[in-house]
């Protein structure tokens, strides 16, 4: 505080800071107060101009005051508030503004100087993490995850479909594959094995078509089952004929050679072809 005694009274000026240790971007308030006791009023004080400081940026100021008369003495008080934002780190001194007044003793302008106040400004704290910056990444991750999941599902579905096709082939597909495997037996004249496998092909194919079990039955029984299942007379007669040939070859020590095997083979192959015509 600075106290000045003049002829017509006494002036006291003081100042303080809201804080002396701050960080960049913090707000600082400088309060400057002037009190006059005498024959004059504080209206004699002009509004001070704050001293510029590169570390601080003035953002606003307010002023307030009061006066009263006690025992024939005017007591006047005026207070200025200057608001700053710390813009630069480091140690600096805040120099309060000079309070200018008119000295009635001398009739000249005079001023009351207030001592500077030391201030430490620390660097600004690291800005809080901006999670909004993560949105593109999050979005990207979600898109990639959805894409990966969808891709996985497609692959899985395709694999399952492929597995299903493998495991659940149509009777015609299964029969066609088995027939293909019989070709070497036909060429090598392994008639017993050929007819044994051919019988299984026929049973498998017609079991699926008739919806009845045919394995382990004689040719006549198979024909009877097919007849009951509504298979046409021509078809079940042919099935029986081929099965009889299979049995004759298997239990009668062979067949009529390649030609006989090929004839049976062609008959069974023909069953796999889709029906033609209108």
């Amino acid at each position: 505080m600075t106290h000045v005694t003049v002829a017509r009274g006494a002036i006291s000026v003081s100042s303080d800071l809201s804080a002396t240790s701050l960080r960049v971007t913090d707000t600082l308030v400088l309060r400057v107060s002037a009190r006059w006791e005498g024959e004059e009023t504080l209206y004699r004080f002009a509004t001070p101009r704050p001293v510029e400081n590169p570390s601080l940026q003035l953002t606003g100021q307010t002023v307030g005051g009061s006066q009263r008369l006690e025992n024939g003495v005017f007591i006047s008080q005026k207070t200025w508030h200057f608001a700053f934002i710390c813009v630069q780190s480091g140690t600096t001194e805040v120099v309060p503004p000079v309070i200018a007044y008119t000295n009635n003793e001398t009739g000249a302008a005079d001023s009351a100087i207030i001592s500077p106040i030391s201030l430490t400004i620390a660097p600004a704290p690291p800005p809080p993490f901006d999670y909004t910056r993560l949105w593109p990444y999050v979005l990207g991750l979600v898109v990639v995850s959805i894409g990966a999941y969808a891709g996985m599902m497609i692959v899985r579905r395709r694999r399952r479909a492929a597995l299903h096709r493998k495991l659940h082939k149509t009777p015609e597909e299964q029969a066609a594959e088995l027939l293909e495997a019989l070709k070497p037996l036909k060429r090598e004249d392994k008639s017993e094995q050929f007819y044994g496998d051919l019988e299984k092909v026929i049973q498998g194919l017609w079991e699926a078509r008739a919806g009845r079990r045919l394995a382990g039955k004689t040719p006549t029984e198979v024909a009877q089952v097919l007849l009951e299942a509504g298979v046409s007379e021509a078809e079940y007669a042919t099935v029986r004929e081929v099965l009889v040939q299979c049995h004759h070859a298997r239990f009668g020590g062979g067949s009529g050679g390649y030609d006989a095997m090929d004839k049976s083979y062609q008959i069974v192959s023909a069953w796999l072809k889709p029906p033609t015509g209108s």
Partner: protein
Amino acid sequence: MHPEIEAIQQRVQTESEFCRKLVDEIGKVIVGQTYLIERLLIGLLADGHLLLEGVPGLAKTMSVRTLADAVQAKFQRLQFTPDLLPADIIGTVIYNMQNGTFSTKKGPIFANIILADEINRAPAKVQSALLEAMQERQVTISEQTHKLPVPFLVLATQNPIEQEGTYPLPEAQVDRFMLKIKVDYPNKAEERRIMDRMTVGAVPTVQPVVSPEDILRARKVVTEIYIDDKVKDYIVDIVFASRRPEAYGLDVKQLILYGASPRASIYLNLAAKAHAFLRGRGFVTPEDVKSIGLDVLRHRIIVSYEAEAEEITSEDIIKKIFDHIEVP
């Protein structure tokens, strides 16, 4: 085809030619009954005796008589009655007063084809005498053994109804019959033809078309018919399944008192061969076994009390076994 089987096949086709003639000749008299006639031929070819069961009037006796007529063989019909004695069948020794010696009087069993009509009407000692002769193919009269003629085929009939005053054949004796054939009613068309044929006055007759030698030659070929190991195993499985059904996953153990005897395996084999022979084949297929199986097994599986209580017959059990045991 294997050369040996092919050779058998050719012999079968040659020797089975008479079967067609025989069937045609029998067909002149008998309408329908193809099942019965085929079984008669199987018995003839496989050298196995047959037991025919059916209600009266189904041409059992006529079929047998016609078969005997068509075969150039000696035929005898024996009507079994409660007062029949063994000597009435096998013969006896007669004292000749003129020269003071005993001479053997052979009974009617000395024939090629015997029809033992209503065999269950004679007492056990008579049945036993016949069945022993069937097995041994010889009879002993007064300490002298006499061979029975060849071929020797006994065709016995029994009536499933009118059981009063009958002597049911013991299981051990029934087992000596190769086939037990159930003769069924003719179908409607056959019935009509029977009526037409038998109401015109003159009953048609048959001529002998087959000699006993033909039959003996055919029998030899029948025994040579090839039967694959797989089919043999199938036969054994069928027979074993009747003894130990649980071992084959069959739930009929409680229904069977006694399973089929080893005679069943032998006769299944022989009858299947004869069945193949009739079809001109030199080898047996499982279809032959299945076709003849019921007739070979129906009298060899003895059902339990539980089965009788539930009215389950041996035929039901055999059908289950055949349905369960898959053909090879």
